[in-house]
């Protein structure tokens, strides 16, 4: 037996966005609406319902940077909702032949791709993309250091379910905040949903964030960051970046900021642990902690598909 969602997707009250470029464009109600739609999608998909919210849509996956989990979960989300998908793998396409981003996207637009999921190494590329296209809608799947809205939404969903809500909860984000689009989108998303965000990491990686994000606190030590935290998200350390950023050798990072069960037991015994993946085990997080019962890393991955289903459904039609 099959049931279906209405094709004219759940046009949530007040939804007025043509593109999904960052969570900062979304109101608190719109954020909550997507999370609730994601839960509904997850339930219906688990129940074996056939969903059609993206029937007739052609979703193009334009990934200018390598990605496995984000690309796969977008592709699956689109297909589960009935869309055609086109994987515009970078190698062998005109992307590598020097055609500009705008020209490539204009071509996709005219070809009839209706939703372009864009991952690009340059901050702001999706904003340039939405100026280039006429009909297609753009979904940002990560732009440089700037934003990764669907990652923030799936983190918010994961945290909301683990903590029973976000209002008044405290999340610590630890690591290379400066180079992290995940951190930026999470700060915006979680604070808008009523959570408190504390940042920790080597000074070069957290400098200026308290001025840029009013209400966000920068902690001086890991202990300071963790105390009172309901959850802690640690970010991937790009090993080659550590030396260049002047934070010293990686073992200094491990000494001061690496998350282990022992440290968590001491400073935030009840806190959940998140990581956007992929992890450098033994650097920003111990293998033991990542696999422990307080790790939400698996749940984050599981929530990727339903959250992206909800995000795509919002833009459909």
């Amino acid at each position: 037996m099959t049931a279906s969602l209405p094709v004219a997707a759940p046009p949530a009250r007040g939804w007025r966005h043509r593109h999904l470029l960052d969570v900062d464009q979304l109101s608190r109600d719109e954020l909550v609406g997507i999370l609730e739609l994601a839960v509904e999608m997850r339930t219906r998909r688990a129940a074996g319902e056939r969903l059609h919210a993206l029937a007739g849509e052609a979703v193009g996956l334009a990934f200018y940077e390598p990605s496995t989990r984000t690309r796969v979960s977008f592709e699956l989300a689109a297909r589960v909702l009935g869309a055609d998908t086109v994987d515009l793998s970078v190698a062998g396409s005109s992307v590598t032949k020097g055609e500009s981003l705008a020209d490539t996207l204009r071509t996709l637009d005219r070809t009839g791709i209706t939703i372009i999921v864009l991952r690009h190494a340059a901050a702001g590329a999706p904003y340039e993309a939405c100026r280039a296209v006429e009909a297609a809608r753009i979904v940002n799947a990560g732009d440089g250091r700037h934003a990764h809205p669907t990652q923030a939404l799936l983190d918010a969903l994961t945290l909301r379910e683990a903590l029973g809500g976000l209002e008044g909860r405290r999340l610590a984000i630890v690591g290379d905040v400066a180079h992290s689009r995940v951190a930026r989108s999470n700060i915006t998303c979680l604070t808008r949903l009523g959570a408190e965000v504390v940042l920790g990491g080597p000074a070069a990686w957290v400098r200026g964030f308290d001025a840029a994000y009013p209400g966000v606190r920068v902690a001086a030590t890991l202990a300071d960051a963790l105390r009172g935290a309901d959850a802690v998200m640690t970010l991937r350390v790009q090993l080659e970046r550590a030396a260049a950023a002047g934070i010293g050798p990686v073992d200094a990072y491990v000494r001061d900021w690496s998350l282990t069960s022992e440290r968590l037991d001491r400073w935030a015994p009840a806190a959940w642990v998140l990581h956007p993946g992929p992890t450098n085990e033994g650097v920003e997080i111990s293998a033991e902690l990542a696999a422990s019962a307080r790790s939400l890393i698996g749940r984050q991955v599981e929530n990727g598909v339903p959250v992206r289903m909800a995000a795509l459904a919002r833009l459909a039609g």
Partner: protein
Amino acid sequence: MTLALRSGRFGALSDAPATFVLDGALVMDPPSGTADVREIAVVGGRIAEPALAPADAPRIQADGLVVAPGFCDLHAHLREPGGEDAETVAGGSRAAAHGGFTTVCAMPNTDPPIDDPASVTWLLARASDASCRVRVVAAATAGRAGVELPDYAALAAAGAVAVSDDGASIPTGRLASRAMVAVAAAGLPLIEHAEDASLAAGTAMRAGPVATRLGLAGWPASAEAVVVERDIALAAETGARVHFTHLSTSGSVEAVRRGKAAGLPITCDVTPHHLALTDAWVAGDRRFSWETGDDDDVARPLEDGLAYDGRCRVNPPLPSREDALALLGALADGTVDAIATDHAPHPPQRKAVPFEEASPGMIGLETALSVGLAAVDAGRLSLRRLIEALSISPARVIGEERSLVAGRPADLVVFDPASRWTVDPRRLAGGSHNTPLLGRELPGLVRLTVAAGRVTWDDGLLA
């Protein structure tokens, strides 16, 4: 050569000298102290006593208009040779005439660079029938490579009015010191683009909360200040005339203020975009610096259509609001001598790309007066100071005089300060249209430009 734009016509330096009488306009001539409504006459290309004008000279009633000495831009990129897809000497000079400029200093960062007497001579010949006087700034180091000094005396003899490695600073203190000794001997000013390359490397916009939110590597104010401080110390040692161009930070103008107070022969300019635009423009804000408040919310959501606009990418990057207002204050009090446009044409394909990949620079010749008048209208600047900064002071940096006194070659601009226009590609004469001001309504229409006695732009006033 003439070319039409909307209602107006362009002329060239090779045209016949002009003769006309203008009545009813406010004549603003800071050097002579004139600032009143009176008749002004041009006879055979020279300013003349109105009573001595021929009886059949065309008479123009110009009530409500302002007459000022022609503007002089110390910093423009005319892109020849090598960048003709963006701009040419002819097109850039028409943009200049359309904006009220009668002299434009062409920067040498062309391909190949203007770094020897032959290339100076070539460029001057190229500009002989342009719509403004083109003055040549030659490279301060051979090939702009920052290693060896060219023969400054030979460059000066060929007609160069200054030297600069614009686009970069002279890289080391030692070479800058040697360059200053040599320019002082050659009688030329050194125009310095103050920017420490190691601090600026990899950055795309001004450091600060906006850059942090946008995830763009930030250009620190220190990148400019350390070179300004270095060069002021070297100017004190060498006695060289050093002109700092496109200053963008309050720390730099503070350093210039101290240097001037110590009696050093240093001068500086700012661009219209560093006065009026701010780093928030990269996030999609479109208010001028003086239109924003102290309590402005850094957390304003980005706008899909306006954020990360490559046309806001410029070097030095757009300043913080505080620094833009400090630059305005320093312009008003005379610490900043001149407004220079850093007119930097680029074709669309070098701007419609992700922000970090956009070529830096925006056009400015045709909007400089209007942006300045917007600051005047906002009470941030006097009209007299604006005219000094666009005309008298920059001309003085390259050793030229500007005045509307009788007997001098006519070199003037007539503009309507009250009329408003919308910046639109169809109303721009230059070869490129890369400015984030497109679509914005601004005050100030240039009605007539006369360079070296020739009408170079006439918006229906004479003909």
